[in-house]
């Protein structure tokens, strides 16, 4: 729940503070620790025992269970109820124990005794004396135990194993407890009447004072610490409790109660708020604030839900207060590691050797936690409700807080923490459009504290992001650097700066190491890559877009990889823990990349790449090699459909458009594509549509030529230009390119203005010869592969094969091996497959490994 440093604060404090406490409290403290350990032991046992019990005696077991449930409820009630009720409950437990004693059920006795001990301890924590009832029970238990043991010795094989075990455990426990309360036991045995009277006298004044329990407790402990006298308890009123002198003691008490099961957190917070009001010196204020913020974060223990929003807002305000205090006052520093100091003393800069008061605590972890809680609340809210939008408005405040913390660390020159806080800041703005970013920055600039890096200083949002990232590259650790790099790439991609983003991605070699990164970073990587693909699409780089998006779409788990939804697995069910972890990872809705838009972009670019290729190949064999498998699958499925209705979904649109394109009906294709609603979500949708129309014309022409060339001897260029309403020049250029790359067996006749096709029809024998040659070739390849597999891909053989296959491939492998910053579409394509595997390794690998 809380980070290590927060824990660290109270722990070392405990031994230092102990001598000041009463003897009584001390026993309580040591007792609680010992009992908690025995609790743990017991828990496991009792579970088994109960099962066995079930089998043996049904009636008894029911009884047992009932009592269990009862007491459970009672325990809950105890937290709220007065002392008398607790006493009653103790007695009820005692009765159960008596009953169990009668039937010689030591398992039940052991359970009940534990319960009782716990109750007493709780009471002692409240600084109430030990009730005589408890001591009496203890004494009677001891006697009956001895009797039982004696009986056990005589009668052989009478008890079952679990019962016997419980008996021995009981013996140990009672012995230990009896030792602890030795004095009380003695007193009781000597003078039972007097003991009870004493107790009544002690308890009476407390009952008389009608105060909330918590306050009482604080009063108690405060007074106890001063003078070791029980009788004055409760006499001290509020005025004495909340003075600036008592602050440290109160803080100590609260810190000790922290993390214990029955602490009332809301009350603690209230007390701390009051303490804050009376705090005078900056030291006091800082100490109280540190405690207050952490107790606010403690308020919500469950991992599944989020912190209440009011509490969050209060915590945010207090962190602001804390940071402002620290920024204004250079004589106080909050550090995670400090030399030991006495928590109970007031400290001033004058006392310290170097004039700086160092206080244990961590502002950065508060900021982290605040940010995380914000994200978590967004994860739990309904993204379509007004609540979500209202919550989103809080981001501005949070952003200012982060900037404030940044300014603080800038001032204190703690570069490592500064890097962390800058990363937080970056994470808030990297995926935002400029307008939102401007708004956030504007809010910062009007606030009182401003960090060095701001929008006004940097000029443009991109510059701001750039400066933040550069700072992280310089000072951050590896994880922060990686995340900064990915955020930077995302930002570039968002601003249609495809080339810069791509170069950064390739030059950083992130794709080689990303599979070993943590899940959150992998998600960020996936997001960046996907955004890059979208960026390529917007810029009209269809091929690049297709290649970039291909990897993530072949996994068919787009939503999961982008942390925008939990993947539904057909054959396996996730364990609850996995599901919980998955849920925690989800991005809040406003950060999502629209997957439908993504799919539309991917399928349309696949269509533009794949359809001409499909048209150009004629043998079945080649047809199997698809560029984009997901697209091909959909297309095949659409082909098999007997009846196709008017398109409804995005996929329908694209499938029908693909068919139209295959038939050379580019206009229909264009209309279908442009009708897709989801384009509305894309910035500069109109420009993108125009670009798509142009692409469709060109690819339509290519497809047409591939498909219908066999049926023509010559084809007029002007006719082509009219059919596809392309300018003659671009028709010329497209046809020329196809001839040059030998995709089309044809040549141009300039004087007449036609394309002349040189189609040679092969005779059957010739065809067979060619097929044979191909088959032999593929057989050799197969053999090579098989041998390579056999030899375990030993390098010597691999090299030789490369050499035999020709220079070009040798060059390529060399390039890939060399760790030079080779980049570009050509080599990217080659890497594609590898990266696809990596994608699935990335998040999916973790999922499977968890199973």
């Amino acid at each position, binding site marked *: 729940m809380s980070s290590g440093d927060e824990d660290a604060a109270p722990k070392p404090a405990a031994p230092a503070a102990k001598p000041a406490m009463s003897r009584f409290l001390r026993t309580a403290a040591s007792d609680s620790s010992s009992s908690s350990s025995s609790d743990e032991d017991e828990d496991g046992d009792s579970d088994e025992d109960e099962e066995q019990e079930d089998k043996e005696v049904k009636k008894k077991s029911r009884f047992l269970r009932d009592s269990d449930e009862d007491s459970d409820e009672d325990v809950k009630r105890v937290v709220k109820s007065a002392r008398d009720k607790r006493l009653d409950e103790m007695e009820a437990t005692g009765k159960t124990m008596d009953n169990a004693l009668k039937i010689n059920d030591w398992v039940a006795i052991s359970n009940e005794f534990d319960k009782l001990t716990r109750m007493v301890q709780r009471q002692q924590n409240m600084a109430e004396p030990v009730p005589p009832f408890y001591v009496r029970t203890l004494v009677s238990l001891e006697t009956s135990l001895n009797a039982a043991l004696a009986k056990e010795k005589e009668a052989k094989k009478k008890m079952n194993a679990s019962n016997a075990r419980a008996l021995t455990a009981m013996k140990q426990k009672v012995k230990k407890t009896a030792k602890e309360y030795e004095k009380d036991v003695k007193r009781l045995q000597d003078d039972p009447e007097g003991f009870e009277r004493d107790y009544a006298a002690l308890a009476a004044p407390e009952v008389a004072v009608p105060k909330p329990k918590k306050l009482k407790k604080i009063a108690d402990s405060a007074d106890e610490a001063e003078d070791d006298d029980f009788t004055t308890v409760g006499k001290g009123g509020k005025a004495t409790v909340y003075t600036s002198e008592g602050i440290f003691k109160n803080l100590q008490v609260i810190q000790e109660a922290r993390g214990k099961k029955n602490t009332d957190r809301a009350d603690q917070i209230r007390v701390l708020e009051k303490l804050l009001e009376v705090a005078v010196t900056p030291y006091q204020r800082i100490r109280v604030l540190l405690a207050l913020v952490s107790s606010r974060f403690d308020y919500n223990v469950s991992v599944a839900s989020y912190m209440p929003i009011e509490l969050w807002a209060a915590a945010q305000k207090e962190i602001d207060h804390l940071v402002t205090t620290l920024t204004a006052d250079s004589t106080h520093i909050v550090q995670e590691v400090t030399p030991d100091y006495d928590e109970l003393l007031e400290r001033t800069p004058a006392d310290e050797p170097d004039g700086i008061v160092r206080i244990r605590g961590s502002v950065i972890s508060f900021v982290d936690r605040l940010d995380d809680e914000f994200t978590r609340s967004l994860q739990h809210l309904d993204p379509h409700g007004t609540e979500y939008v209202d919550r989103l408005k809080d981001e501005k405040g949070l952003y200012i807080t982060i900037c404030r913390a940044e300014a603080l660390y800038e001032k204190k020159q703690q570069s490592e923490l500064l890097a962390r806080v800058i990363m937080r800041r970056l994470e808030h703005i990297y995926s935002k459009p400029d307008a939102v970013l401007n708004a956030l920055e504007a809010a910062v600039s009007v606030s009182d504290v401003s960090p060095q890096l701001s929008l006004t200083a940097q000029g443009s949002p991109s510059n701001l992001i750039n400066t933040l990232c550069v700072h992280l590259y310089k000072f951050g650790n590896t994880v922060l650097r990686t995340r900064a790099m990915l955020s930077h790439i995302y930002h570039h991609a968002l601003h249609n700066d495809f080339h810069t983003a791509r170069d950064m991605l390739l030059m950083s070699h992130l794709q080689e190491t990303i599979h070993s990164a943590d899940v959150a970073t992998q998600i960020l990587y996936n997001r960046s890559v996907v955004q890059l693909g979208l960026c390529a699409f917007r810029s009209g780089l269809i091929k690049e877009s297709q290649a970039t998006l291909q990897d993530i779409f072949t996994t068919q788990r787009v939503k999961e990889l982008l942390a925008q939804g939990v993947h539904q697995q057909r054959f396996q069910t996730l364990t609850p823990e996995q599901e919980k972890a998955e849920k925690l990872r989800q991005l809040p809705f406003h950060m999502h990349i629209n997957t439908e838009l993504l799919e539309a972009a991917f399928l349309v670019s696949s269509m533009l790449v794949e359809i001409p290729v499909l048209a150009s190949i004629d043998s079945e064999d080649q047809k199997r090699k698809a560029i984009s498998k997901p697209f091909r699958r959909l297309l095949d499925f659409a082909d098999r459909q007997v009846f196709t209705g008017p398109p409804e979904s995005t996929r329908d649109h694209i499938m029908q458009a693909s068919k139209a394109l295959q038939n050379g009906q580019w206009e229909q294709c264009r209309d279908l594509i442009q009708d897709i609603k989801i384009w509305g979500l894309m910035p500069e949708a109109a420009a993108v549509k125009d670009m798509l129309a142009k692409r469709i014309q060109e690819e339509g022409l290519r497809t047409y030529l591939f498909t219908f060339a066999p049926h023509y001897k010559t084809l007029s260029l002007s006719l082509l230009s009219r059919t596809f309403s392309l300018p003659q020049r671009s028709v010329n250029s497209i046809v020329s390119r196809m001839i040059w790359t030998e995709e089309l067996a044809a040549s141009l006749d300039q004087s007449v203005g036609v394309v002349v096709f040189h189609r040679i029809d092969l005779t059957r024998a010739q065809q067979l010869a060619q097929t044979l040659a191909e088959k032999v070739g593929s057989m050799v390849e197969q053999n090579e592969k098989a*041998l390579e597999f056999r030899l375990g891909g030993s390098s010597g053989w691999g090299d030789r094969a490369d050499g*035999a296959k020709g220079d070009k491939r040798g060059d390529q492998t060399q390039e890939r091996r060399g760790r030079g910053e080779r*980049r570009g579409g050509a080599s990217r394509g080659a890497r594609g497959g590898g990266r696809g595997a990596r994608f699935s390794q990335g998040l999916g690998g973790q999922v499977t490994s968890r199973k």
Partner: protein
Amino acid sequence: MAEYDLTKTIIPYLDRHFAFPLLAHVVDLSIFPAEDVAAAQYELAKGTNMVDYAVNLYEQLNPDTEIPEEFADKREKAVSTNERLQQEAQAVLDVIENPDVVQALRQDKNQNLTYLKDNYGLTLEQITALYNFGQFQYTYGNYSGAADYLYHFRVLSTDTDLNTSAHWGKLASDILTGKWDVALEELNTLRESIDARAASAPLLPTSSHIESLSSLHSRTWLIHWSLFVYFNHPSGRTLLLETFLAPAYLNTIQSASPWILRYLAVAAILSRKAQQATPGGAPTSSRVRHAIREIVKIVQLEEYQYSDPVTRFLKELYVEFDFEAAQRELQIAERVVADDFFLGEFREEFLDNARYLISEAYCRIHQRIDIADLSDRLNLSRDEGEKWIVNLIRDTRMGADAKIDLEKNVIEINRPALPVYQSVIEKTRGLSIRTQALGAAMVRAGTQQPATVEGAR
């Protein structure tokens, strides 16, 4: 034409002394105001020990004012330093020039050092004097002297850093004295040493960071310096392609200095003739043979960072197949090439080769070509065009396929499709070699671990 001038871009990557010829060239071009250039020259010269030259320039710039005192001081200082350094160096030189010593020197540097130390009392510090003197000579423009001293130093010294520095100094001196053969040799050894250093650099993420950055820097410098050599040495263009298209250098160009693409493109266009001229001669590597194709790819990739008329010409011709645009770009490119410091001498050759590329592409795509149209594309008059085309047909392989029809004024090109048997041969060509390799590998594996092969059968 100033917008295509690369002088400003290149100078930061050159030594101070290289800038003088470049600036002198700029003066000739007169595309920049003469005063600015002169001021730049003066600023450059001020930083060197070429005091007289600086004074000259100062007088040119400020004809009326007195020459500042500092020059006299500087001159004096330079002269005295020169004498001091020379004396120091002379001591070493005397020893080295002794024929006995020359006889005794071996390949092993450490051994040489101990020999010199034992017999002549020469220490490493004294040898460093050679370096100092060489460097000083370089600063006042005595390049050949500098080259000598640095050479001697390098032979003797074991200090790696100074050796590298001496390497660069020697290369600079050789370039400035115009000894291209020596410079080329120097360039190659320097390149090897840089590559070796980069390769031996540990792959640890921490150190490789700085290491790869430094090798990127030295490669960038090497690329710029080598332009002097490659465009002056007779077989420089082919070597340029060989070097620059190596993956390591290609990366350097792409990431650090995309403007080098111009020189790469020009070299590729120029080297077409070179391979044509020596059919069956020295086999050019596949890299050079496919240079144009490679470069077109890179030009396309880097278009967003750099483009100039030369690269645009290639792009229009081989990517867009827009002959009109290509011919337009060629016209501009011709002037750019003519104005370029390195390329100036190759203008004619460049134009010739570029035309050839255009007509080659044109002929491959078309079946019937109007001669007038082609002449137009090549930016030639009718008659010239015809002559050009006839030469083209005679020179190239398409001699048999192309015929000129004078009556209609067209060229007819008949390219029969590749016969089936040929494609079958093509496909099955490598099979026997590959199968042999397969067999060899199996035998080898069999000797190592017979059990595996047993299983393989």
